[in-house]
């Protein structure tokens, strides 16, 4: 009895085939179901064909699995042309026998219907082409176009169901794309026949920014993340930006990394923890960028590789500003151990930024990263949006063991900016900088608001920026 219960409630064990697409396999706990069709639905222009094609390209390139693209809407030449601007290398894969494009032309003008028919010819063509290249992966793209040409939709639906049944029998790992319906998930009700795994793509415009989202609606027999995930398409293909594993424990390092300020290191017991994330916030002119620059400079001097994202200024401006307060970044830049990447958030959407940061990090493989300032992101999205993006950046950097320093600008009004409040929970060490009036003049004050895993001093310190460098001292200490 117990055994019976156990088997009836146990999830079906599904073999997984990695799509190879950035982030998607994490969401799908390994990939798409092996040997079964997955339904990919979404409105026009949301990226169905790109995702489907990338599934084949990654399969061929990274897993040596030949793939067949059955394309209803676009001819082979058109597809090759459309994908020419991307790094998919379709022609090479075709020449290598790892990819085949089978165009099924369904033209309205020359077709008349008379009586019963089946889609066996389509099945035979797919079978034949798949056998020729030894296909393991299959995409059937935009099969809906048959429905707009043929009027016998009931018969067609039945035949599509038969075709999909056949796919399951032959065990091809397939992605079937379909147009999103208004009432139903798909315009022609394909979800009734593909029930194992359903993925929905969606594109919406909010505040004139287009955001694309992916959601795994259904995955029978497998755990999966039900959230919506932003995704991007660029030259290299699809990137889904998962946040799921954020709760995972990161290997907590006990190694310390110098803050770049000797006296601050002393107060913190040696510096920041390697692989931790540090937020430095304060109003304009309180010394945020200076602390961040000292950190990157000392990292480079130790022989580490630091990537500095300057969100407000050009690399030349950054070095010039730092020189004015006695920090010379030039040697570090010349050695190649410090790289400054400048970009303006307003030119791109948040997701593109996230992708820009993560890809730059993946390419350059730094050990330390500075983002100066993160507050600039709030100009391109609301607080929740910014938080989710930063969470993804933090996750990505943390899982790579990178030590991250973020600066945030506190607005003049004095109230904490929403962004820094939102991200503070994701931060290991929080340093707040302030200008305080002391004896008729104004002094910079540094406070360790929070420092995970550190037995830190909660005192306020005076932050001294001088041509000899940066230092902190306890109040009451005489300036040296």
């Amino acid at each position, binding site marked *: 009895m117990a055994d019976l219960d156990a088997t009836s409630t146990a999830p079906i064990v599904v073999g997984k085939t990695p799509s190879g697409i950035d982030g998607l396999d994490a969401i799908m706990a390994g990939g798409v179901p092996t040997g079964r069709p997955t339904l990919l639905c979404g409105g026009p222009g949301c990226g169905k064909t790109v995702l489907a094609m990338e599934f084949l390209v990654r399969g061929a390139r990274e897993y040596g699995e030949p793939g067949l693209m059955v394309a209803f809407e676009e001819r082979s030449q058109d597809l090759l042309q459309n994908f020419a601007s991307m790094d998919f290398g379709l022609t090479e894969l075709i020449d290598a026998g790892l990819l085949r494009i089978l165009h099924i032309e369904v033209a309205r003008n020359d077709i008349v219907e008379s*009586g019963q028919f089946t889609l066996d010819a389509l099945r035979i063509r797919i079978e034949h082409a798949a056998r020729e290249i030894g296909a393991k992966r299959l995409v059937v793209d935009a099969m809906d176009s048959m429905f707009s040409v043929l009027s016998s939709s009931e018969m067609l639906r039945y035949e599509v169901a038969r075709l999909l049944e056949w796919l399951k029998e032959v065990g091809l790992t397939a992605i079937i794309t379909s147009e999103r319906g208004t009432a139903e998930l798909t315009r022609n009700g394909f979800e009734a026949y593909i029930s194992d795994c359903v993925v929905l793509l969606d594109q919406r415009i909010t505040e004139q920014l287009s955001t694309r989202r992916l959601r795994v609606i259904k995955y029978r027999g497998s755990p999966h993340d039900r959230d919506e995930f932003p995704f991007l398409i660029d030259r290299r293909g699809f990137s889904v930006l998962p946040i799921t594993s954020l709760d995972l424990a990161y290997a907590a390092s006990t190694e310390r990394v110098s803050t770049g300020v000797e006296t601050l290191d002393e107060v913190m017991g040696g510096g920041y923890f390697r692989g931790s994330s540090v937020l430095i916030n304060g109003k304009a002119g309180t010394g945020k960028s200076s602390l961040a620059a000292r950190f990157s400079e000392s990292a480079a001097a130790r022989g580490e590789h630091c990537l500095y994202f300057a969100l407000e200024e050009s690399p030349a401006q950054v070095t010039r500003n730092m020189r004015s307060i006695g920090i010379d970044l030039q040697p570090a830049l010349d050695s190649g151990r410090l790289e400054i990447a400048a970009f303006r958030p307003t030119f791109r959407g948040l997701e593109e930024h996230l992708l820009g940061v993560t890809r730059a990090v993946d390419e350059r493989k730094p050990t330390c990263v500075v983002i100066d300032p993160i507050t600039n992101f709030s100009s391109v999205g609301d607080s929740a949006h910014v938080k989710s993006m930063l969470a993804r950046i933090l996750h990505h950097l943390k899982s790579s063991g990178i030590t991250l320093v973020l600066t945030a600008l506190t607005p003049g009004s004095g109230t904490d900016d929403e962004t820094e409040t939102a991200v503070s929970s994701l931060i290991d060490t929080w340093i707040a900088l302030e200008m305080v009036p002391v004896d008729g003049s104004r002094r910079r004050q540094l406070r360790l608001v929070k420092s995970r895993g550190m037995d830190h001093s909660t005192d306020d310190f005076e932050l001294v920026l001088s041509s000899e460098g940066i230092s902190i001292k306890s109040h009451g200490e005489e300036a040296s």
Partner: protein
Amino acid sequence: MTEPTNAEHWILRLYIAGMTPASRTALANIRAICAEHLEGRYTLEVVDLLERPTLAEGDQIFAVPTLVRQLPPPLRKIIGDLSDTEKVVVGLDIQPAS
């Protein structure tokens, strides 16, 4: 629009996938239509895609049975077992014999 004259020779090709009941029905139907309208001036070729799968590409066949009017031009396709005779005659653009 060129009207086919009596002198024109018709080439029809019927694509099937195995000799299924639908294939038989289609074959019987087109033979009857040809006998009535195109007697002595048509060639009917039957292509079984199970045996020659590559032939489906040329005429872009996805359903079976499909009847293709190869000649005279333009190319025309009729999908189904051809049980609706009137649709077949209109679809093939067969002019009533005068």
